[in-house]
């Protein structure tokens, strides 16, 4: 086994184990953290394919931003585990059917002959000076610029929709106006009075 294979199997094992733990572990915060570990291992696997831009972006976007916000929400939830497990027996038949169907589909795809080491060989390594960041940038902003812009607009629409769904004007809320706070001068707030040192000096 080469060094690269050892690295691959280590991270693949971590990836599979942590993905299993995401769905089996009881505590939702721990589940979210195992999902973080799964993303991280996936990024490491991409690194072995010399796709360093995609790998680092996966860590940057999903681990560094998306999962932090996820964790932020999950930590605020007050989840009663006993209550969640109450309906387990009722949902078991339907759940197992869905799981079996999904597993069957995956197995069919895997056995179709389109996957495997022979059909999808490891991509050939690039020359030393090759930068896949630059190559990806050129492709995204020239050949695929239309698809890229459409994706950006869809995301923008999603942002605006989410904001407009949650934005409520509440008349009772008192807002601060920072520009007014900043513009306050000393003369508006305090008045300096000359005081004599002793009462008798007043004359």
């Amino acid at each position: 086994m080469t060094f690269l294979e050892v690295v691959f199997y280590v991270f693949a094992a971590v990836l599979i184990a942590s993905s299993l733990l995401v769905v089996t572990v009881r505590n939702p915060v721990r589940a979210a953290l195992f999902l973080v570990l799964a993303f991280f291992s996936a990024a490491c696997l991409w690194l072995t394919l010399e796709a360093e831009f995609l790998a680092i972006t996966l860590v940057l976007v999903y681990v560094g931003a998306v999962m932090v916000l996820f964790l932020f929400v999950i930590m605020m939830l007050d989840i009663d585990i006993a209550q969640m497990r109450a309906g387990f027996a009722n949902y078991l038949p339907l759940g197992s059917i869905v799981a079996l169907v999904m597993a069957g589909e995956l197995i069919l795809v895997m056995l179709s002959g389109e996957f495997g080491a022979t059909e999808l060989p490891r991509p050939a390594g690039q020359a030393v000076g090759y930068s896949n960041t630059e190559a990806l940038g050129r492709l995204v902003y020239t050949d695929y610029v239309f698809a890229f812009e459409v994706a950006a607009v869809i995301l923008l629409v999603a942002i605006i929709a989410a904001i407009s769904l949650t934005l409520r004007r509440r008349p009772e809320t008192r807002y601060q106006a920072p520009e007014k706070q900043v513009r306050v001068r000393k003369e508006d707030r305090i008045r300096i009075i000359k005081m004599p040192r002793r009462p008798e000096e007043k004359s």
Partner: protein
Amino acid sequence: MTEALVTLWGELPLLVQLGFKFGAILLPLLGAVAYYTLAERKVIAYMHVRIGPNRVGPRGLLQPIADAVKLMFKEMIIPTHADRYLFLIAPVLALAPALGAWAVIPFTDTLVLADIDASLLYVLALTSMGVYGVVIAGWASNSKYAFLGAMRSAAQIVAYEIAMGFALVGVLMAAGSLNLREIVVAQSGGLHEWFFLPLFPLFAVYLISGVAETNRSPFDVAEGESEIVAGFHVDYSGMGFAVFFLAEYANMILISALTVIMFLGGWHAPLPMAPFTWVPGIVWFFGKLAAIAFLFLWFRATFPRYRYDQIMRLGWKVFIPVTLIWITVIGFAKVFTPIGHWFG
């Protein structure tokens, strides 16, 4: 003798060589962190017209060692109903990214552990993971003060990370590379070529966001001693507390190093002529790093703590628009104006 040593070095297995290289970066870094804490106490003390620690060793120079020994021998208490494993792993998660990012920092033109292609992104990705240590510590402690600190810190770090990322986009547009070494090379030729002049708004945004990212005063609401005792690490004692401290100071040094690399010309002398070039590049690098690191201490001694809503307003409504506008300015200047070469 030296030739024999060079051959011996070449004969060593790769992992042993890497181990030596890690040690050569991490041990001085940890030493620097220890003495940065002493420098902080001394600098702030003099700014307050006090003396600061002066009892342990000559002029207090052994104080960090005494602190480290004390913290190592203290008992580490795990609070009741705390999540034991997450409680213990949180300090490690805070420290690991702060140390890992040093792998790609170029100290001089040739002295860099891993000269990878996307090192700027690598640094950004790793520093964005530092927030997990804080968030997990706050949640696992099973304490409302720790939790409040974690919530504040998470919101703050996510907000300022965006401004920081956009500031770095400006740098990579000017340098035309994601590689930190090439970013420094793009700034060669003297003081006027350093990116802090053409990218001055981004330099200011990056430096201030760096202070906010490391939860330092005046943005230290995550600790907020006067409101939530010590925030996310209130329940940590002994080594756990020490590791959080290490992480905070290692992050400050890292942000200083990155500021130097991206805006202050890295290892380059201020002017490429005789008296300046006599000093080796690595001295310039560490000198600039120390100057930026000093700013962190100066800020702490000077500014009162920001109010929480004002931190959010500054991050989202001031810094992010400023960076977005300046990115457009850079693009416009590079393509359409005669001073485009100045922008990289």
